[in-house]
């Protein structure tokens, strides 16, 4: 036998090929993002739950026989009789097409490639594609962050932070308790240390002002789209800011502030006067969230049906004033039909780089809408 012994460790490719496979899964998921992010079951999950996503593009196609046509030979326990039913077959409906879910693994030849992902992983893929334009350096941001202050005393700590006065007092008290009021006979338990606490400063904050048209024309689809968009927008902003406050405003002919629950579920009949909500938004900004301290992201969901052209003009006036104070203002027109509203036409004439307008007519539009609203490159 020859002594030639290849060094197998140099031949190994498993880890790098496995890595390449994982990259391809990620790429396939990325291609499916428009579909994934507007899936209602995903946005209502808790972020930990594993979602199974079938990935057809990574299946290794080859010429093969129909997986469950024709007889097979197998082993059983010796008790089977002709005619015994051994199980159910996956039906053609769930074996082909998009929504495949079969009884994989029960019979030979049936397997589907499914990637298991969590909401957070989908979010990470999505957020790779998004950017945060017009991030303002606020004046208060000159305060170093995180800041900390010595505020507390602890029996354990760093010797450099020893609080001599308190330690002396502890020592004296303990000695006095046994009848000898003097300083000495030190024990570790006498020592007291200054300790600090982190003090987050609120300078790195953002506020989302979510506005929604609740007039009669906003149906279930529109509510869901508004909700999906807001969900990802908030989640995205929370990855960039220490804390994100949200103000919910709704309007028909009049605007008012509501709770989150109401925001997504309210539906009222009546006309629409869009200027009312922009006016309220402006007031909220001026009174509660001064632009000098806050990064402001107003977003408005509407089907664009406004009461009158005069009100469109009024809205544009307020809009222009608002634009000077916000980071990005989004107008998302959600509609099932194809025509462009008068409000959208009016907004398009504004041509301000911080005004982003998108039209959502299908659930796949949420993804490009998010990319328009949060582009990787400014301008």
């Amino acid at each position: 036998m020859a002594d030639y012994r290849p060094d197998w460790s140099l031949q190994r490719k498993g880890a790098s090929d496995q890595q390449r496979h994982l990259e391809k899964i990620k790429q396939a998921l990325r291609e499916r993002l428009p579909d994934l992010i507007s899936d209602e079951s995903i946005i209502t999950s808790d972020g930990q739950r594993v979602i199974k996503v079938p990935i057809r593009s990574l299946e290794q196609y080859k010429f093969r026989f129909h997986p469950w046509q024709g007889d097979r030979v197998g082993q059983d326990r010796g008790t089977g009789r002709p005619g015994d039913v051994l199980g159910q077959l996956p039906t053609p409906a769930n074996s082909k097409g998009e929504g495949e879910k079969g009884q994989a693994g029960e019979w030979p030849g049936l397997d589907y490639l499914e990637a298991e992902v969590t909401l957070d992983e989908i979010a990470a893929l999505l957020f790779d594609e998004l950017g945060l334009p017009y991030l303002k350096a606020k004046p208060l941001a000159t305060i170093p962050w995180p800041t900390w202050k010595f505020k507390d005393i602890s029996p354990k700590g760093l010797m450099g932070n020893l609080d001599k006065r308190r330690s002396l007092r502890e020592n004296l008290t303990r000695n006095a308790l046994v009848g000898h009021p003097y300083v000495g006979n030190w024990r570790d338990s006498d020592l007291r240390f200054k300790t600090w606490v982190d003090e987050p400063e609120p300078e790195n904050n953002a506020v989302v002002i979510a506005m929604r048209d609740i007039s009669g024309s906003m149906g279930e689809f529109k509510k869901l789209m508004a909700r999906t968009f807001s969900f990802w927008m908030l989640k995205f902003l929370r990855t960039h800011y220490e804390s994100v406050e949200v103000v919910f405003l709704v309007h028909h002919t009049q605007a008012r502030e509501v709770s989150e629950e109401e925001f997504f579920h309210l539906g009222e009949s009546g006309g629409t006067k869009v200027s009312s909500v922009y006016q309220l938004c402006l007031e909220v900004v001026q009174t509660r969230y001064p632009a000098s301290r806050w990064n402001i992201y107003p977003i408005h969901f509407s089907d664009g049906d406004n009461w009158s052209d005069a009100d469109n003009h009024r809205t544009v006036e307020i809009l222009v004033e608002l634009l000077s104070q916000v980071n990005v203002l989004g107008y998302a027109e959600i509609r099932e039909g194809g025509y462009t509203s008068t409000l959208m036409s009016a907004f398009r004439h504004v041509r301000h780089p911080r005004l982003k307008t998108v039209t959502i007519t299908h659930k796949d539009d949420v993804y490009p809408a998010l990319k328009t609203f949060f582009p990787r490159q400014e301008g």
Partner: protein
Amino acid sequence: MSGYAYPTDQEIWHMAQELGLDPYPITFESVPAPVLYEFAAYLIPGRMAHWSYGKAYHAMKIRYDYGLNKLYEMVINANPAYAFLLDANSALENTFVRAHVMGHVDFFHHNQCFSHTPADMVDVVSRHAERVRQYEFSVGRDEVETFLDAVLALEEQVNPPTPPILPRERPHAPSSPRMVKPPWDLGEPDQSRIRQVQVSTHIEEDLLWFLMRESLHLEDWQRDVIGMVRDEMLYLWPQLRTKIMNEGWASYWHVALMRQMSLSDADYLDFARLHSHVTAPVLYHINPYALGYAIYCDLERRQGREALFLVRTVDDDVSFVRNYLTEDVVAELNLMVYGPDQDRMVFKSRQLEEIREKLVKELLHGGIPVIHVNDGDFNQRGELYLIHRHEGLDLDLLYAERTLHYVQRLWGRPVHLETLSNGKRLVLSFDGKTDSKSML
């Protein structure tokens, strides 16, 4: 076990020789689980890189990590042969595995299906891997990967050489220069030559070989890659068509060799447990170890051990099952036929003839559909017309449709595949942009 020294590699090898086996010399090596699983995923150590191997490796390793299955060994058909043992094996397990390996290596040496396999395939695949790496360097990794995606999808579409002891009738003398000189000998590609060829008079059974020679669309490195993948498949092909025989032979001999050793009672019990583990039935599947072992034992009872040596030399799984499956084996293993009946899977039969017929059908051509090249100049437009040789089972049409995309990628012109579906003749086509389907 204290007191008993297990036989060494060499001693087991000599025991095997005394019992009539004739294995190649074997280099044994202990490797940790990730290495063993990697070899098992790639089938040959040092093979070219591709994500699909990484996927297989990942799946195997997960199963191992969760304790769902355990590989004890991996043998490479080479001379000298390589056998990798899991370094976590006990001394008894390793003795058992070594005995098992003797059967495999004897089988590689003597079964006629393996007479074409090169003795130095490990070196060959290393050179392949190196060449693929160079192509990645010169044309880009994504380019090579996308191309390999297509070639590997068709890797099973080869026509393995028929063993030399059964010389087959040569096809008729070629009617065109195509057979005499491959296109790369002709200097500049001659477009008109392809136009003249009427491939329909000669049926080409080796799709990969045909694409490699005849596609006008490929660059040199691409032809080389197809050739490499095809060579590796031809090397592995005999293992696919002798799975039952090979595992059965190895199991038969691990029993015979272990019985030669004077094992303690405890060791004997452990050995029996290992043996029953590898031959354990899997519900509604065929365990090749169990079936092969049972057939050899049954044959030995009827004709003696000498007869087994001839069988291991001349048969493959199809002829092995056809010739030697008996009522006794069917009863011992509880073999049965089952199949679909409307939307249910039902028990069909326990008759020997039924079982034999269905099993042979499953094993034919390694369970892979046979696709012929019928015409390389279909419609006089350089389109490729393939025919699936229907032998009772329909193709998975969804898969066929997607696989046709890969054929088109290699052929560069529209491609067609004729098959039968529910008894009706059907042609699937792909022109590079759209799929179409038409009834004939």
